């Protein structure tokens, strides 16, 4: 950053204001995600009704007994929504864990490999990345059959190509740095270089992108469930709730709106956290919002 700043239109925002807006992004993100995580945690110990309890009237509108009404079988929608929070977070964490494990490993191998192997891996990754996450996940679900585990695995594998390419690009940038050459000439082995130089250097960027992929995983799971390829009942995934409520949108709009809002809160929250973290990790980056 230079002392002299160009006099373009964006300069009207003072640095202090920008700093405040940044931390606000992170705070809103944490609040949104915290809300959904809290709901998911509460659902583990307390639910308003049993998930299979059909004692409510069919398609009731929101009331004191049923805060967001009931579905076409008379089941409480808030109960399903709370279980949905648990499923969304499980899928997000699970898929990102799977994707990060596979992706970082492949990316590091490519970065360290001989050029021909690097090129082969890169070409394969380019093909895989060209495929949208959901299509790859659908393919895997097609072979494996629909279940919560398959959805996590499928989305994780689909995300891993993105992680691998990012890791490879970031890692090979680090590997070209002079301090790595110095470490190599002083006899540090490759795992030492990975542990001491590569991972600490690429972690901030990688972490931000993993947060973004969490959002992508949650959306992909919702789409899979909406298409009937996600976790089968009794798992009340938000995507499946939306699919079930679609036919009764006019008579019971709450059931078709609430899960969507919950999804948006979670994904916006995660994206905000990613944005906030990126600014924290890289203070030199200007105008990221």
């Amino acid at each position, binding site marked *: 950053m230079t002392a002299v700043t160009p006099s373009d239109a*964006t300069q009207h925002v003072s640095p202090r204001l920008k700093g405040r807006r940044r931390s606000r992004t992170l705070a809103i993100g944490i609040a949104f995600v915290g809300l959904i995580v809290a709901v998911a945690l509460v659902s583990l110990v307390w639910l308003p009704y049993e998930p299979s309890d059909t004692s409510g009237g069919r398609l009731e509108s929101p009331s004191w007994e049923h805060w967001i009404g009931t579905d076409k079988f008379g089941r409480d929608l808030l109960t399903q929504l709370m279980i949905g929070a648990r499923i969304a977070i499980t899928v997000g964490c699970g898929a990102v864990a799977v994707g990060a494990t596979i992706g970082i490993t492949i990316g590091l191998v490519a970065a360290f490999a001989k050029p021909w192997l690097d090129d082969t891996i890169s070409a*394969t990754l380019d093909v895989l990345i060209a495929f949208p996450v959901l*299509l790859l996940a659908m*393919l895997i*679900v097609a072979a494996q059959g629909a279940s919560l585990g398959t959805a996590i695995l499928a989305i994780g594998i689909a995300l891993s190509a993105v992680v691998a390419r990012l890791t490879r690009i970031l890692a090979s940038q680090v590997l070209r740095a002079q301090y790595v050459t110095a470490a190599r000439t002083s006899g540090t082995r490759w795992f030492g270089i990975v542990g001491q130089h590569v991972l600490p250097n690429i972690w901030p960027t990688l972490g931000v992108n993993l947060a973004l992929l969490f959002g992508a995983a949650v959306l992909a799971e919702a789409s899979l469930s909406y298409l009937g390829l996600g976790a089968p009942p009794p798992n009340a995934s938000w*995507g499946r709730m939306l699919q079930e409520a679609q036919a009764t*949108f006019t008579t019971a709009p709450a059931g078709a709106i609430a899960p969507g809002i919950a*999804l948006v809160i979670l994904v916006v929250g995660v994206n905000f956290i990613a944005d906030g973290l990126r600014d924290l990790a890289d203070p030199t980056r200007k105008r990221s*919002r």
Partner: protein
Amino acid sequence: MTVYLVRRLGFLVISFAIAMVVLFLLLRVLPGDPANALLSVNATQEQIDAARAQVGADLPLFQQFTDWFGGVLSLDLGSSFISSLPVGPEIAARMSVTIPLTLLSFALALLIALPAGFIAAVRADRWYGILLSGFSQLGIAVPVFWVGMLLVNVFAVNLRWLPSGGFPRDDWANPGAALTSLALPVITIALVMSASLTRYIRSATLDVIGSDYLRSARAQGASFSGAFWRHGLRNGIVPVISILGIELATTFLGAVVVESVFTLPGLGSMLLTAIQQHDYPNIQGILLVSTLLVLVIGFLADVAQRLIDPRLRTSISGNGIR
């Protein structure tokens, strides 16, 4: 450039071959038997064997692959396990819905995103710039099928302006009717796609605005708009084009999901049915054609980038970072 084109074409062919192997292996090596599609739950062993022979699942894996590969080379994608209809013509018929849906959505998304992203960057300090950024944040967090549901409820059920779904039985015989039934799906996909496009265009514009070359041009006396159109556009558009390739592919996928909201007889609904019925030839065929389209889009995006930016002409694979 000719050398580059030849090498990039070679890369396209190799990528396609890799994709075929990956597709085939993902479907065959993972558990699940193709013959299951033909059988009831309590089938006898003879029935299972007969079904496996009928679909060719009893042959060695390598021979299954070479049979399929040979078929693809002669433009024969096989026949459905379920309906026994050839896969190729069925896909071609479905494309007459999915391709227009994809292209119209993408065009509309670009029409929204180009000005929105530019304004969001140049007027980042005004309320409307912030509003546009906010909308694009929201747009990348919204599931596309939910947007479809909401739009159907507003414009089809309540206002009755547009049909809520379906497609004319006679396809494009009556273009007006076909376009009307595509209107809501197109708006749905375009709204969601324009959000992420807006973000990319906004950040590309911001990069240009903050760049040293623009500052130099300004220092030499060029006006902001003069410097932007003369230097910024050509520099800023290069990363956008590679994103456009990926986004066009994503639009195609958006079409696959949205088709099921609006019950359109496109490639997406065909894929969904095929997956539910474990109809492997159809699944393979659809994914193969989609892959080919996605790869060709990537190829065109790369060539376009090279034409615009001579600095990129040295690397073969797309990203140019080594």
